[in-house]
């Protein structure tokens, strides 16, 4: 068991930190610390330009194979990159869906043609992706998607019809990957397909969803006979669920330590305010601040265990608890921020609804325990897969 990084890894860390401090300046100074969760709608032009700056420096897709423009970076190097990126205040990545979800999915399941067609655009930071998974009737029960994909013999293309929801960055994206039903006779995880669909076409309509924060990161996306080339299905019709589940596996892991750096800056701000306004002398708040600190460190060592685990791709116990752990921690941090602010928590920065960072944290973290699998679904997963307890029965409605 070895807690510290090697000298070579620390050298890599210095290289990343140097590049970021050289480049995250000048025109990009304004976007430092911006564009994270709850703030994804801001500075889009600048963040797209930043994506290309990163790509030019060779800092996109570093975990990809060299053959596709990556660095074949080790897990440790990817962790270090994410840590340094967050430490430097690197803005929320507009390219993260393509880099962390589409790319790995195509590398694992895609055809050579699909890789040739899509990986370079993701790697050079020029083509952005969004995801089309959840539907109004398919949230926790993702396999219940109703969006249909029918092969249109005359045009030789797939036609997609249905509605997706909670799609962030839809209006900025060039492509969306869509989980859709290829076999209309099926209603479960069988008979699904995984499609790569261009956004700029008449059959695609985007409608923003205004949230409790007053901002709109998420969208509804309507497909009305949207077209998708015959060879833009990943795998075969019927393979959709396998591909989609593989993709969810790529979501975990190396980015968690970067996420924690972001959390640390939030906790640091709360500690700073507590010292300044006297909350630091309140015994009940002292307990909660200490608990938050311990909780964040726990997330770190949970992640390190998860990343050091077996290379067989199976979900370890640490990985299964991770979502439940961080989402609950972050939601509690939002409430702690309000309590440390005290009466001032109620006052806005301005009209019409200008939230400060901690107010936004408080409101938006209510989403953390819902998206990506609610806390209740996470507990089911832990109980069933880690503890071997009986599976939930399916209803008949």
């Amino acid at each position, binding site marked *: 068991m070895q807690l510290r990084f090697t000298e070579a890894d620390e050298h890599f860390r210095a290289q990343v930190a140097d590049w970021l401090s050289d480049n995250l300046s000048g025109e990009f100074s304004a976007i430092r610390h911006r564009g994270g969760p709850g703030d994804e709608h801001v500075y889009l032009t600048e963040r797209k330009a930043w994506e290309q700056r990163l790509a030019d420096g060779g800092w996109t897709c570093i975990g990809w194979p060299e053959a596709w423009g990556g660095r074949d970076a080790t897990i440790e190097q990817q962790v270090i990159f994410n840590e340094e990126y967050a430490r430097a205040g690197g803005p929320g990545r507009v390219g993260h869906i393509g880099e962390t979800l589409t790319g790995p999915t195509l590398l694992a399941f895609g055809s050579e043609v699909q890789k040739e067609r899509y990986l370079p655009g993701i790697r050079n930071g020029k083509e952005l992706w969004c995801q089309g998974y959840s539907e109004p009737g398919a949230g926790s029960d993702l396999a219940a998607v109703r969006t249909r994909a029918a092969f249109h013999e005359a045009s030789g293309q797939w036609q997609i019809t249905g509605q997706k929801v909670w799609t962030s960055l839809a209006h900025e994206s060039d492509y969306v990957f869509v989980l859709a039903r290829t076999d209309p006779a099926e209603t479960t995880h069988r008979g699904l397909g995984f499609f790569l669909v261009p956004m700029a076409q008449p059959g695609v309509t985007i409608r923003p969803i205004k949230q409790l924060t007053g901002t709109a990161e998420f969208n509804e996306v309507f497909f009305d006979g949207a077209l998708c080339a015959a060879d833009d299905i990943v795998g075969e019709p019927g393979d959709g669920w396998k591909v989609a589940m593989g993709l969810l596996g790529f979501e975990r892991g190396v980015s968690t330590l970067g996420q924690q750096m972001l959390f640390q800056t939030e906790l640091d701000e709360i500690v700073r305010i507590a010292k300044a306004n006297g909350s630091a002398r309140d015994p009940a708040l*002292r307990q909660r601040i200490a608990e938050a600190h*311990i909780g964040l460190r726990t997330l770190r060592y949970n992640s390190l265990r998860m990343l050091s685990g077996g290379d067989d791709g199976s979900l370890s116990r640490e990985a299964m608890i991770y979502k439940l752990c961080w989402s609950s921690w972050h939601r509690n941090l939002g409430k702690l921020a309000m309590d440390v602010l005290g009466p001032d928590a109620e006052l806005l920065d301005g009209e019409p609804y200008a939230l400060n960072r901690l107010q936004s944290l408080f409101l938006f973290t209510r989403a953390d325990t819902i998206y990506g699998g609610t806390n209740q679904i996470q507990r089911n997963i832990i109980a069933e897969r880690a503890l071997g307890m009986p599976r939930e029965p399916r209803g008949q409605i």
Partner: protein
Amino acid sequence: MKFSFTDEQLMLRESAEGFLSEYATSAAVRQAMASPSGTDEALWQRLAGEMYWPAIVVPEDCGGLGLGMVEAIIVLEQLGRRLAPAPLLACTQSVLALRTVAENPGARALLSQLAQGQIISLAHTAARPHWGLEGMAVSAVQQGQHWRLAGEARFVPAGDNAGTLLVAARIGSGCGLFKLSPGESGLTVTKSPTLDQTRPMATLQLSGVEISEADCLSECWSSQLDTVLNLTRVLVGAEQVGCAQASLDQSVAYVGERVQFGRTIASYQAIKHKAADMMLKVESARSLLCYAACVGDEWLQGSASAQELTEAAAMLASSAGDAAFFCAGTGIQLHGGVGITEEYDIQLFFKRARAMESYLGRPDEHREVIAGLLLDKVDSDAA
């Protein structure tokens, strides 16, 4: 960075699991609880003579295995899972105490004895109301070639089974460390009946005990005492994780068999979600345990600061203390009526969890330590 056990460490864990499942059965634990010493002496002979566990953190040049805190927590977690009635925690604490004075020939002799399975306990406090130096109620005064010790020490783990006692005693505003034989004139060792009957404790009364100068191992031992207590908290954390894991395992097994309304109660979400919460706490405490053990090893190698060790021990004690109590308490609830019977083991884990939760500080006291580090430090940029 490789935050997982090595192959050798995994083998150690496996052999500990196998050995204890054979010899530290529920029946053996209950038999030891009812015996005068509260200890399973045959088990102790085996784990010392065949497994060499008391020798784990003893340096090689004192006849030990020369391993570290990570190996110690691997074994202690398994002892915690079984409530094994053997004083390995007490003896490992003594090893760590003696390592702080390892240049002393008397200490080196004791380390060799520990490696061979002699029971040696550390008495350091009366814990009224606090642990450590604050609660220390034995004083030492030098008189010519001798030291005179007087006062009381409580919560001495395995104290009435120990062949030698290490006693920390006040000298002025600090403390020293002394070696005593239990037969010393003026010393009374009494077993203290405990709520958790699987972990015997003793009380020492000292009235003018005279000790030769050679048996003073250190006259200036207060910062070392802090260190030893922090390292002990890491060992306690291992037993707590084991206790929490066993509470979870036994509860999951029970609810998988218990049928009500025509289905196993394990199939109810209300039960599943409680079990999931238990696992979350076990695994979180386990992550901090691994971290704290690594920091402990770095401390022993001289590469971690005292503050890092204090922080790691306090984080672990807070997390593992809560985890063990939550899991054992929830375990009783999941067992339903049988959970409060003498027959089922979950009540034994509940008592152990309570005992360990307050040993060397409650979880909220440890959080206050963390709060102090975070909130009371004067900012260097503000100064």
